[in-house]
């Protein structure tokens, strides 16, 4: 049960309604954010950029999103992003490796290096070493590591938000 109101399209502030889908539906996360439309106007475009495809492909973005959500134990984000990750091209075997529920062998060396970076940043950022940074930069450019690190931090913020407010996780097929 959400600790926040989840307004429908017609209950939402006018400037928040543009973030609902054409059929008037929206995710529970979007509906909860509609309570603060000013914030939404800044946050939603940012999320679109940080989660969207760039020089970093979508499977890699989803890999980071799922891994961080798994580490933070966010039911909402895991349920919302598993189907998106599959649609982006990650296999069930890779998903199990990302979520730590199966062997990581299905992941290539680049993805394993990124996961090692994301794990350290999410669980113990002061523990990042020069060696870990150098190892990660063997696989991604500086600007890409910046983007992935900002993505990881953003996902932690969303994980905390969804968990603290008990935003109801989407059911399969939603």
């Amino acid at each position, binding site marked *: 049960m959400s600790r926040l*109101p989840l*307004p429908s399209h*017609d*209950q*939402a*502030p*006018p*400037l928040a309604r543009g973030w609902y889908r054409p059929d008037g539906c929206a995710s529970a996360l979007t509906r909860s954010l*509609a*309570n*603060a*439309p*000013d*914030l939404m106007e800044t946050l939603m475009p940012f999320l679109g950029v940080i989660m969207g495809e760039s020089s970093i492909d979508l499977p890699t973005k989803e890999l980071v999103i799922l891994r961080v959500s798994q580490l933070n134990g966010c039911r909402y984000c895991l349920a919302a992003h598993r189907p998106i990750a599959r649609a982006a091209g990650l296999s069930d075997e890779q998903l199990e490796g990302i979520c730590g529920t199966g062997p990581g062998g299905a992941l290539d060396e680049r993805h394993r290096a990124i996961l090692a970076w994301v794990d350290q940043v999410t669980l113990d950022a002061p523990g990042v070493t020069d060696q870990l940074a150098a190892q990660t930069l063997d696989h991604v450019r500086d600007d890409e590591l910046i983007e992935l690190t900002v993505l990881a931090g953003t996902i932690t913020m969303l994980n905390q938000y969804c968990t603290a407010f008990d935003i109801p996780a989407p059911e399969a097929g939603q």
Partner: protein
Amino acid sequence: MTDTRDRIREAIADGSMGERLWLYATYHCNLACVYCLTESSPRIDRRRMLTPEAMARAAGEAADLGLTCVGITGGEAFMLPWMPEALADIASVLPTVVLTNATLFTPPLLDRLAPLARYDFAVQISLDSDQPSRNDELRGPRNFARVMDAIPRLRDHGIRVRIATTVEHQTEDELGRLCELHRALGIPDDDHVVRSVVRRGRAAVAGLGVDLGPTDVLPELTITADGAFLHPFAPTVRHGRTDIDLLVSRQTTPLTHAADKFIRIVSGLPAGADVVRNIR
């Protein structure tokens, strides 16, 4: 700022928004009217109010943006002890009307209002019937008598008085008699506003009033302690929670920030039916 001011000027000129800035001084009230949009009463938990400094600053910024007048509402504005001086500050910048139930006008308070006579300033008093029992049924015990007492005393202090009647069950005969009454009190027809109960807030809980469609009310930038809203019928409260369906912005400082978002919403609205419905 210039762009927002230009767009506001155009919107006012083409009739798609009103030229008044509304300020919700407080949600606190000494009455608990059955149709109150904001569930105001003496016993509300959160009296949320604008400070006098915030109200004066908003009025100044409104003038810079091209708005031409200010309305002060609530709640009951005169629950706030500093209201007469705050009104003088605002009225020195823009023509001002303050909405009130007129039940708190003691002689000392009237004396503090007297300096406002030099400005374009009016007190708009709610009065719903020419019959005390009918009026008091909606607005509380002894309300009619207090209003009848306040009107001549305000006018004696040089204060312009307007009457606002909120229509729910009144007959045409009753409204006709009410007009005779306000004329007898020296208040011309142009200073008598008649509008419907709007089915929001406490009125919605009680099943009173008319439903508002998106084009039924002329948009007028409305500032409360909860944020900026699309019109003065928007920041309603139901079961203690402020409705957000007509929330423009939670940020109201600077006013340009809220005005910019307001004008973006207004420019997306279809032409209104507010003139027909007389909900202003």
